[in-house]
């Protein structure tokens, strides 16, 4: 067992966090301002703002907020409702309380409006922050960590430096027993055969290929792949070229199963997160931006997210820290203040892929032990959540706890 820290945050449901965050969650855009004002004075004190903007109820967004509000890095929750929106606030409050976390609800229409709700919210946050200080501590081992990965702002260097280095880090983490999650089935278009050959079982292989075929249909209908103008400026020409580079983030371990957003794997290993909705195309693009993908990785339990970037994304995230692995040495020099790891140095003869892979694993351990990432220290707490619809995956794709 590789010990990462002795003082991880032990939740009543047995899960262990590497951060002790209080989440202020608005349940419709109409409550966003009030929730933000409640959070603002505590921004530096581990209070994060998340929420859902829509007024119509949606099973996906409910499951997502339930998973996020009971994430191991979250110690308590304050829900902010306007009062007339469609979101099932009682259900979410109950789900969080069932997990043993303190949870409170403020309804603006019942609290006397903006000023009164902000004042009451800040009082509650102060009280909950004191209770968070008393959360029990426990030893966290490397095999208990859940690590997600995403690439954003990819260019022609991503697939030859940062992505394969993350793949090597994933191989090491999976060997240590940790849970690793890669995603964006739309960025596996063109890799189906290789993907299937990596599946732990034929049933999983079938599900993996089906999920990529679904992504291809979805994107074709929308008229856009997962390909932004900056990708082409950076030397990438086609979706399948971008896919091959993106796929290398997954390393070489067998793929143990397929997840849908909010599914938390019950045993270690490598998983693919299917981010593309099921059924007919509705609600628009599967993921409107990188943050939507990061939020889904976190909903699957990711304690920390490895973010590979060539063009130079600066985002971080609410709830779980983001480690920025920069693929392009020019971008690293230009945005040094936003990057954690200089993977592009491989191209300049200042390092090797295995060295960068080792550096990523070491940084994951340090961040899990409490060290802030660059984006975390800068105060990045991006969050976005929209509408989707999913069918649950079958039991074949969820290997039981070992």
């Amino acid at each position: 067992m590789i010990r990462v820290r002795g003082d991880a945050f032990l939740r009543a449901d047995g899960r262990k966090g590497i951060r002790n965050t209080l989440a202020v969650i608005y349940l419709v855009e109409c409550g966003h301002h009030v929730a933000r004002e409640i959070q603002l004075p505590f921004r530096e004190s581990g209070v994060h703002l998340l929420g859902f903007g829509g007024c119509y109820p949606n099973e996906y967004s409910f499951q997502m907020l339930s998973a996020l509000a009971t994430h191991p890095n979250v110690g308590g929750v304050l829900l902010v409702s306007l009062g007339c929106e469609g979101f099932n606030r009682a259900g979410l409050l109950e789900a969080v309380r069932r997990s043993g976390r303190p949870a409170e609800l403020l309804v603006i229409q019942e609290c006397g409006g903006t000023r009164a709700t902000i004042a009451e919210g800040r009082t509650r946050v102060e009280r909950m922050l004191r209770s968070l200080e008393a959360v029990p501590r426990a030893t966290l081992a490397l095999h208990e960590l859940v690590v997600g990965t995403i690439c954003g702002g990819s260019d022609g260097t991503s697939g030859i430096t940062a992505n394969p280095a993350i793949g090597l880090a994933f191989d090491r983490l999976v060997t240590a027993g940790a849970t690793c999650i890669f995603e964006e089935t739309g960025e596996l278009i063109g890799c189906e055969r290789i993907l299937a050959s990596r599946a732990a079982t034929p049933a999983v292989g079938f599900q993996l290929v089906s999920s990529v075929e679904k992504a291809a249909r979805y994107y074709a209908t929308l008229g856009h792949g997962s390909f932004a103008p900056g990708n082409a400026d950076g030397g990438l020409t086609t979706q399948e070229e971008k896919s091959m580079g993106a796929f290398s983030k997954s390393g070489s371990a067998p793929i143990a199963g397929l997840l849908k957003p909010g599914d938390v794997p019950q045993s270690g290993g490598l998983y693919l997160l299917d981010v593309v909705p099921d059924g007919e195309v509705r609600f628009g693009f599967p993921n409107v931006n990188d943050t939507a993908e990061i939020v889904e990785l976190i909903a699957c339990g990711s304690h920390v997210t490895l973010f590979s970037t060539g063009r130079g994304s600066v985002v971080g995230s609410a709830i779980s820290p983001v480690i920025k692995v920069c693929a392009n040495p020019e971008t690293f020099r230009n945005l040094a203040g936003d990057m954690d790891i200089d993977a592009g140095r491989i191209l300049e003869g200042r390092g090797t892929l295995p060295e960068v892979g080792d550096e990523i694993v070491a940084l994951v351990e340090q961040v899990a032990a409490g060290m802030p990432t660059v984006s975390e220290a800068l105060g990045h707490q991006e969050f976005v959540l929209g509408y989707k619809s999913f069918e649950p995956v079958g039991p074949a794709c969820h290997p039981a706890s070992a």
Partner: protein
Amino acid sequence: MDAILLSPLDNVAVVVRRLAAGSRAELEEGEVTLDRDLGLGHKIARRAIANGEKIIKYGVAIGSATCAIAPGQHVHLHNMQSDYLPTYTLETERIFRKAAIS
């Protein structure tokens, strides 16, 4: 080294430092003259590539040439295209038409 080869099967190499048009780039197969300014991560042809031939990178096809490409030429949107999304557009239309009829 100005460009790297990701797989011995590849007919393109990836440029690893900024190179100006007209400059001579050194590849494993010898020197080539560049037809354009190239940024990091862009692809150049390792050898002559025929119109319609697959572009191979990472040892797999990442699309097809849309015209003849000379050794050392920049390989990008102007002379290659995806094999994939157009295929899937037709496939999707077929699926949706079938769904619309039934």
